[in-house]
């Protein structure tokens, strides 16, 4: 499937339908394909006149451009020098990469701003498409760095649990993909278990030490609830 929205439009003529459609959607010729269902007919002196029917399919290129415009417009308020590059990995997953001097301000504390922008961009794009699409905003190499720092956070939490008698450690709020990463890392450490509590965007991970008499097996039944 290469299109993200299919619409059937009725109008006086094929030409008129397409002109109105292009204007309404602010869409370029190469961003959609169409199929004529009925050419329509002017009839004879208006009698037997028939409307034309066209089926239009909007391609992912349109969504790439629209997402780029949306993100560009927002980040330009931070710093007009920021460059936005949008790429659709496939028709369901869009990645907008932002680069430039002022991105630190957008990222914000713990990536809060990045998460906010991503949330809004996702709503924006889904409003334009029939199928659910996901949007990821990546700022510079922020996500890569964040991954490294999450690994460090988990490591120090494990040390805390090991050294003194602490039974559980609560981490700072994180995004869902970050929490998933934490749970993923902890899988390798059988002597602890983890779960998430709280409401977005303040949901955070709790790591608890497993009781000695508690067997390792119940772990399988425990829902991650990421």
């Amino acid at each position: 499937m290469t299109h993200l929205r299919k619409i059937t439009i009725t109008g006086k003529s094929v030409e008129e339908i397409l002109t109105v459609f292009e204007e309404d959607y602010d869409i370029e010729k190469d961003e959609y394909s169409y199929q004529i269902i009925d050419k329509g007919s002017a009839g004879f002196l208006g009698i037997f006149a028939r409307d034309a029917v066209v089926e239009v399919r909007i391609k992912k290129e349109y969504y790439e451009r629209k997402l780029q415009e949306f993100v560009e417009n927002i980040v330009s308020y931070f710093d007009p020098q920021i460059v936005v590059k949008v790429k659709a990995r496939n028709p369901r997953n869009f990645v907008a990469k932002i680069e430039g001097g002022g991105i630190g301000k957008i990222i914000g504390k713990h990536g809060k701003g990045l998460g906010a922008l991503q949330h809004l961009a996702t709503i924006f794009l889904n409003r334009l498409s029939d199928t659910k699409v996901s949007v990821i905003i990546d700022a510079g190499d922020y996500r890569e760095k964040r991954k490294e720092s999450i690994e460090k956070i988990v490591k120090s939490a494990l040390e805390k649990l090991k050294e003194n008698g602490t039974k559980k450690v609560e981490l700072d709020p994180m995004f869902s993909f970050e929490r998933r990463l934490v749970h993923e890392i902890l899988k390798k450490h059988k002597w602890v278990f983890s779960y998430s509590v709280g409401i977005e965007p303040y949901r955070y991970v709790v790591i608890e030490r497993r009781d000695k008499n508690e067997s390792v097996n119940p772990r399988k039944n425990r829902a991650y609830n990421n």
Partner: protein
Amino acid sequence: MKNLLEYILKGIVKNPNEVVVLEFEEDDKKIFEISVNPEDVGQVIGKDGRTIKSIKILLSSITDESDFILKVVR
């Protein structure tokens, strides 16, 4: 700030033409009063207020001030 707020709102609602933002001060606090089509109110606020919070985060990081209120009116 008001322009950006309007831009974001128009991008996420079903009825962009009905987005109206009023900016005024009350007790030394800046207030943005947002009114949208009733069917878009939920969209603007979002689950657990996530969307309106996201908007607030973006706006406050631009201006370096978070001393303003976003109000969605019905």
